């Protein structure tokens, strides 16, 4: 039931209502339950009062009220995060930014746009249709995730191989700092003035303040695009081809791998013509000017065949291109035919170690008697092993967790990192000490403390030394839709 908060006896709620209005301050169980989770596997979050500000001033008022009443606050966009970054601990004030969804300004000649944080990623690129420009970060959740969420998580996506992750596309950001003050970090043009506080803020997972207006860089649409589908009889051969392409001095716009289990699951849905008997396929996208693209197609075909590619197919038209990508992007919808639940990991390894680490992942998963599917951003070594299981099976969660932890350990031991694009949130903070020394973590804490000296902004996230969130369960029933 939706409980109106207009006559609440809670002084915090009264303060929030006077700053917003009763309609946009919700205290009922339904709202609190809805906002207690995100798209991660983490359950057991506890939201406090849920606010829907519509202006920077209202966001600031939410923060100030939280502080005045000794409560934490957690910012939230569309809730598509996969690491529990927006899962509330200890009944914080939830600052939900989805009503701040206006595209404020598009400056085509200067190739930038100012947007509010609740603008959906794909809506911005749709809005830009016809201008010859687009917003480059393209997480697979782009039809749902917000640009504010992209900023908080420094999100990636297939085309970030060439164009860089979100931080490379955020020029400036208006932030409500954790003390309620409003600042603009970064510049519309040029290198940062003084410290790159904008760069420090991006990827802060809501622990450094709340973005209320974002100036994004717009990228020119390429004049020519080619999409290639390469298939291999071994995962190792596909991985070696990835290394060979990079070593040859080419950076494709995207370079994705799908293993046989993914191909088998996806092909019946999309009819993209994926060879279902291949051990792995690579999707390679090249963009730029026509001669450079044509030259790279030729060089990649040669390299792929030298590394054992069985076939190399260049999409003949836009329809074929779309089908190839549809298979990649809908991979996670297709897996329900195999198992009802899945847990998606996200680590990065040196791309020259792809073959050996993937082989090790197959072993780890077999040891735990689970099923794994691999569909990932091979070009930058960003793995996304997807563990499939049925949560109703007794004891399966322990095995899923054990496999997930071992994959993280193997990735770090191979010279990799904990996360390439999903962030740390609650999910991985216990692994931070695998990658970082106490001194490394202290340096990160120094950055955080400068933004948030009192520790009220999403405090239980990212650093293992911060507040704990004892009541969440690390894995519960998995969400119906999840993206990578």
């Amino acid at each position, binding site marked *: 039931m939706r409980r109106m908060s207009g006559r609440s006896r809670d002084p915090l709620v009264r303060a929030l209502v006077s700053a917003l209005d009763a309609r946009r301050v919700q205290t009922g169980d339904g709202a609190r339950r809805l906002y207690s989770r995100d798209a991660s596997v983490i359950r057991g979050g506890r939201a406090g009062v849920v606010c829907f500000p519509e202006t920077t001033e209202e966001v600031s008022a939410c923060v100030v009220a939280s502080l005045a009443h000794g409560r934490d606050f957690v910012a939230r966009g569309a809730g598509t995060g996969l690491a529990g970054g927006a899962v509330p601990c200890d009944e914080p004030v939830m600052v939900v930014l989805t009503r701040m969804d206006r595209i404020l300004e598009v400056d085509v000649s200067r190739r930038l746009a100012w947007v509010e944080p609740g603008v959906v990623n794909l809506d911005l690129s749709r809005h830009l249709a016809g201008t010859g420009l687009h917003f480059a970060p393209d997480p697979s959740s782009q039809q749902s995730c917000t640009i504010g969420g992209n900023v908080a998580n420094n999100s990636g996506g297939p085309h*970030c191989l060439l164009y*860089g992750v979100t931080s490379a596309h955020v020029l400036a950001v208006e932030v409500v700092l954790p003390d309620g003050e409003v600042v603009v970090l970064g510049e519309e043009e*040029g290198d940062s003035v003084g*410290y*790159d506080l904008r760069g420090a803020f*991006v990827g802060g997972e809501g622990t450094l303040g709340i973005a209320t207006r974002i100036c994004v860089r717009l990228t020119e649409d390429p004049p020519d695009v080619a999409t290639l589908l390469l298939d291999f009889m071994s995962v190792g051969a596909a991985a070696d081809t990835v290394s060979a392409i990079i070593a040859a001095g080419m950076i494709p716009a995207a370079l994705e791998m799908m293993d046989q289990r993914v191909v088998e699951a996806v092909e019946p849905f999309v009819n993209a013509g994926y060879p279902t008997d291949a051990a792995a396929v690579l999707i390679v996208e090249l963009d730029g000017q026509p*001669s450079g693209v044509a030259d790279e197609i030729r060089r990649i075909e040669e390299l792929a065949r030298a590394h054992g590619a069985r076939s190399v197919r260049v999409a003949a038209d836009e329809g074929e291109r779309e089908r190839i990508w549809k298979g990649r992007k809908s991979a996670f919808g297709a897996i329900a035919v195999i198992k009802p639940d899945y847990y998606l990991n996200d680590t990065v390894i040196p791309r020259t170690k792809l073959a050996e680490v993937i082989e090790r992942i197959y072993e780890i998963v077999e040891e735990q008697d689970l099923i794994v599917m691999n569909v990932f951003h091979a070009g930058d070594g960003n793995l996304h092993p997807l563990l499939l299981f049925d949560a109703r099976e007794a004891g399966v969660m322990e095995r899923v967790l054990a496999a997930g932890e071992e994959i993280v350990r193997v990735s770090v031991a191979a*010279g990799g990192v904990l996360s390439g694009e999903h*962030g740390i949130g609650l999910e991985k903070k216990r692994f931070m000490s695998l990658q970082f020394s106490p001194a490394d973590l202290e340096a990160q804490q120094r950055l955080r403390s400068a933004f948030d000296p009192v520790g009220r902004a999403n405090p239980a996230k990212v650093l293992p030394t911060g507040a704990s969130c004892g009541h969440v369960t690390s894995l519960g029933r998995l969400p119906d839709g999840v993206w990578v």
Partner: protein
Amino acid sequence: MGVSAGDVHMVGFRSDVGDSGAVCVRGGGTRWGVGGGPDGAREVSAPVGIVTLDPAEMTVMVGAGTALSDLAGELAIHGLEVGMKGPSGATVGGVLMVGRSALRRRRVGTIADVLLQADCVGADGVAFTAGGPTVKNVTGYDLCRLLVGSLGTLALVGRVILRTRPVPSRSLWLAGEVEPERVLDATYRPSCVLWDGVRTSVLLEGHGEDVDETAARLALLELSATEPPVLPTGRGRWTGRLPSGGVLEVGSGVVHQADDGGPPTVSDGVRLLAGRMRASFDPSGRLNPGRDPYRVAA
């Protein structure tokens, strides 16, 4: 220079920095006055040399005291480059700490995009690592971006891992008396566009035939091949008006001009946050005490 570095584990560097007394790292000294002087701080040197260069990873680990030209020479053998540029004699660490992006930033990205990992010594004399070794990484806070342009006021950087890029197969400067907007409309992602108020210069890079095809299109706007421009050494920030003798780096906000302009104005809120940041990393104010990143021209 060889592909090996002295002080690989930064033991000497950490000991040189110590845990007390004002201290700074001296690189090539090519922009020694930027943001103020060392103010009597003890000068130490960062390790020199390439530690590891793996072309298949497109990353390089290098001592911060390595001359950028030495690194560039070694990378060029493998057809690679880093998206950084500095005056002759500048070191890798110095260029990162000053934080000015290369003239070719439209192609190679900003200098903040280059630094993947930094091994540092903090104000307390304790070594720590910022960032990570892979080309993609969102693990924890982005300390690397905070360090770039910090003038060594948050930590002293001894060793770094940088992103490398393939060198374009063809580069061509063109110039002509035309508005920069028309050049931008006629090109796809040029590496640099300069405007001196009358003439626009553009750097085309990429596949030879694409460069030639674009050059042919620009010939219709009466742009013709030219030598790389020699720019004035001072800097200012673009305010909508070009100073006499100034050259605008279109899209970057930078004006190359005879003398350095004044530092841009910064809001009180940003100043306060920056002050907290500096105090958080260096509570006793021993790192580069005479320098202030907010006193830099552009």
